[in-house]
């Protein structure tokens, strides 16, 4: 399976570890990622919020660069995904307006969780799990931009998505049922109005804890950085929830390791995951073999 891959700027900076975990699990799942050559920033919220023409032309350049290869485009960042989808729709409608002769590629633009929750990928993940993350109660947090607006994203369940719950269940962890899965964390405002970000993140984390979650998982690099960094209002440490990337959890469950280097990049202590990995002494797929051994002892 070959995919064009658009990492986006965050995955070269604050979310570098997101990129690494994606490449790692794709190798294990036998998915070949071909990075779009010389890709540029999609403009994120800042471009479309202040300049329509720039907000469209930046992602369009990436689409045109991917057109030759014509593989489906895998996008891990929710904001990049939404901007590429918006540009793709606009360009298909009227290429001449955007100085493009023709544009009717066969490729689809796919966000990472939708990709991972496809039945055959999910089955492959399940099969390759070496350590079940069974004790971990997880709040799957989607945020905004992989879902909304559905006229742009083509999301199927934009109010009640379940792709991450399916993935989390496949690696043996327990997705909790909770209220704020698709609420906005105000990532685009976090620099200019941290007070608003703290309020929104506070509400989200409180809801996740109330539902019994020991950690959160997301598929958006802005949400990950914002929710980890804005949740301790008065420096109250210890009560925070770590926010994992969905691929970080999968990588840990498949490989059975959670490296110290990976743990270090979290702003909130992710020790809960290493504890679960350590306790998952009986590898999922050899549970019966282990029982057999016990008998012989």
């Amino acid at each position, binding site marked *: 399976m070959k995919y064009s891959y658009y990492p986006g*700027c*965050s995955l*070269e*900076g*604050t979310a*570098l570890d997101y990129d690494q975990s994606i490449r790692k699990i794709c190798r294990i799942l036998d998915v070949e990622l071909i990075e779009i050559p*010389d*890709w*540029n*920033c999609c*403009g*994120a*919220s*800042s*471009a*479309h*919020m*202040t*300049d*329509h*023409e*720039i*907000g469209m*032309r*930046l992602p369009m*350049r990436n689409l045109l660069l991917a057109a030759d290869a014509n593989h489906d485009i895998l996008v891990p960042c929710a904001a990049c995904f939404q901007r590429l989808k918006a540009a793709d729709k606009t360009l298909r409608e009227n290429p001449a307006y*955007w*100085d493009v002769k023709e544009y009717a590629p066969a490729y689809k633009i796919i966000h990472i969780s939708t990709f991972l929750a496809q039945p055959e990928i999910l089955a492959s993940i399940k099969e390759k799990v070496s350590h079940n993350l069974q004790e971990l109660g997880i709040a799957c947090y989607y945020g*905004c*931009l992989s*879902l*909304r*607006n*559905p*006229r*742009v994203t083509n999301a199927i369940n*934009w109010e009640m998505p379940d792709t991450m719950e399916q993935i989390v269940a496949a690696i043996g962890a327990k997705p909790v049922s909770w209220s704020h899965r698709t*609420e*906005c964390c*105000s*990532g*685009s*405002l976090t*620099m*200019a*109005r*941290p007070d*608003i970000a703290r309020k*929104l993140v506070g509400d989200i984390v409180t809801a996740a804890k109330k539902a019994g979650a020991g950690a959160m998982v997301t598929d958006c690099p802005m949400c990950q*950085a914002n929710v980890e*960094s804005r949740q301790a209002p008065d420096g109250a440490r210890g009560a925070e929830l770590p926010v994992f990337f969905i691929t970080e959890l999968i990588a840990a469950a498949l490989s059975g390791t959670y490296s110290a280097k990976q743990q*270090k*990049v*979290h*702003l909130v202590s992710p020790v809960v995951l290493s504890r679960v990995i350590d306790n998952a002494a009986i590898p999922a797929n050899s549970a019966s073999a282990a029982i057999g051994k016990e008998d012989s002892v």
Partner: protein
Amino acid sequence: MDKNCISPDERSEKFLRKLKTRNIDVQACYQCGRCSSGCPIGDYFDLNVMEVVRLAAYGQEERLLQSHTIWLCAACETCATRCPNEIEIAELMDVLRELALRKGILPAEPRVPLFHKAFLGSVGRWGKAYEIGMIANYKVKSGDLMGDMKLGMSMFLKGKLKLVPHSIEGKSEIREIFSGKGKEYDR
């Protein structure tokens, strides 16, 4: 009372035409309020989302461009998603912000457009967002030098901020985009 009067004489036809070319059908609003009730930032707005849509339908451009709301909207798209008439409300906010900037109207939340400018400045220069450069630029321009200092240091020490910008090959294409390609046609 006078202050709240809206006169058809003050209607901006140009603004209404702009909304039409972007397919933002504000006239379709029947004031159900789903947009306002779902808005996560609504508590901080001076005009609630439904008021923004209504004022837009009345062509009340000036009041809208001076509002805090257009800058505090986080573009989460909850309003447009839930609108029963599929009015592109988040795009309406985009149009309003762009108009305010083009007209040089003093933004009610100056730090927000400063952040966007710093972000896009780094994209225009390198073709990709360069976080440290962008944050430094924003801090200097906004005067908010000390805010988030601890967070910034902690991210830096954790290796989350790269020291050198990643530059792309096709920078001339990016420059062309930023120099206003397309806008020759007055759009």
